């Protein structure tokens, strides 16, 4: 039997082209393996082979979505794959959404099995877990060694059309698909067993976990902007020059609150970004590009807004856990309320 033909998608970083300063490169295709494909190829033994690798910069992909989708799909199609693999993207948000988008596209357009791999908090997971098999990985490339065998195993099964077991057995992220199966005990008995365990305070596993939607309904609009106190918040990591509180460039464990009383403009001498997840050149040159203090001051002077709140809040959204981000904002939102802030502009890179 001939080997299963695989096309692999990775970003500029894993291709060894460069970091954030190269995130704007357009898609390109190379024959054979590049970067993590090497380990995947090895794990396939002789059953499958990566025939081509498509590489695209994360920023390019997300900023030119429709164009990038067309270009990437064309490159993949040319190599006639039997199977498509994207990533692993770990906890890189833009990479994860790109992997998910391409994998879904290939599945829909080329009708072949596809596979991605990410950390459960990657935004690409929530966007695509219903459509795709996404192998669960750790949150950084350090988890590559564990990710590769799980990916290779599931990929081969998909390519060969074998039956796919439960998420726990196969190591992919639950897609919310219900499967019928036969059990020895009937439903009423199982329900009573669970109830008894719950009453005793013992652990039990539900057979049907409730989805966690947690949407927050929008607040009413601001009635009179000319009287409103508006605050600026950012996940783009803008901090006073020197990053006095040492906010981490990635996986932030804290946020900063900075006084901008009397600050009319953020300059290269006074402010910079601590964010390690995008090319910092433009923000360091002029931090207003991320946190628009200059424009807000103009609007304040002209009476378009009542006032700009004297503090801004900031953290780096790069690989920062959802739990931390939630905790930060829950804390400073109370301060914003106490300070009588009427509206917030939150900027993200």
């Amino acid at each position, binding site marked *: 039997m001939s080997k299963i033909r695989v096309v692999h998608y990775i970003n500029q970083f894993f291709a060894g082209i460069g970091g954030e300063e190269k995130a704007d490169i357009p898609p390109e295709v190379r024959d054979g393996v590049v970067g993590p494909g090497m380990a995947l190829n090895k794990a396939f033994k002789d059953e499958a082979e990566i025939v081509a690798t498509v590489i695209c910069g994360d920023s390019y992909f997300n900023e030119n979505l429709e164009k990038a989708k067309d270009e990437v799909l064309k490159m993949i199609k040319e190599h006639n794959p039997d199977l498509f693999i994207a990533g692993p993207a770990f906890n890189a948000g833009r990479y994860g959404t790109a992997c998910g988008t391409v994998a879904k596209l290939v599945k829909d357009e080329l009708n072949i099995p596809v596979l991605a791999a990410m950390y459960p908090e990657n935004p690409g997971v929530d966007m695509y877990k219903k459509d795709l098999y996404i192998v669960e990985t750790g949150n950084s490339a350090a988890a590559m060694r564990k990710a590769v065998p799980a990916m290779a195993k599931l990929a081969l099964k998909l390519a060969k059309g074998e039956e796919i077991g439960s998420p726990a057995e196969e190591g992919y992220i639950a897609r919310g698909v219900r499967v019928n199966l036969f059990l020895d005990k009937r439903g009423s008995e199982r329900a009573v067993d669970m109830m008894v365990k719950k009453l005793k305070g013992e652990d039990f596993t539900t057979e049907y976990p409730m989805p966690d939607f947690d949407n927050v309904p929008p607040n009413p*609009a601001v009635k009179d902007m000319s009287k409103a106190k508006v605050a600026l918040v950012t996940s783009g990591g803008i901090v006073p020059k020197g990053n006095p509180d040492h906010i981490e460039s990635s996986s932030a464990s804290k946020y900063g609150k900075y006084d901008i009383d009397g600050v009319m403009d953020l300059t290269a001498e006074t402010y910079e970004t601590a964010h390690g997840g995008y090319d910092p050149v433009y923000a360091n040159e002029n931090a207003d590009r991320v946190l628009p203090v200059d424009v807000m001051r103009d609007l304040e002077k002209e009476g378009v807004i009542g006032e700009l709140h004297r503090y801004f809040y900031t953290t780096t959204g790069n690989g920062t856990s959802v739990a931390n981000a939630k905790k930060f904002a*829950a804390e400073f939102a109370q301060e914003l309320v106490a300070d009588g802030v009427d509206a917030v502009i939150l900027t993200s890179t």
Partner: protein
Amino acid sequence: MVKEIERAGIPVVHVCTVVPISLTVGANRIVPAIAIPHPLGNPQLDEKEEKKLRRKLVEKALKALQTEVDGQTVFED
């Protein structure tokens, strides 16, 4: 963070480049930005033009804050 601010009762607008992420995160008022490393700027423009562009985006954000919405809304041009 957007969700926690909204939960606290303050209307919030998310100005961001990757709109699908903002939708996933649960922002209700979304204004698409310019580019990831400079969401509210464009280094290719001269300083005056760039500030004008930034002002337009901020004005759009303020307009979003003054608009009643039922659910997640992306404020395109």
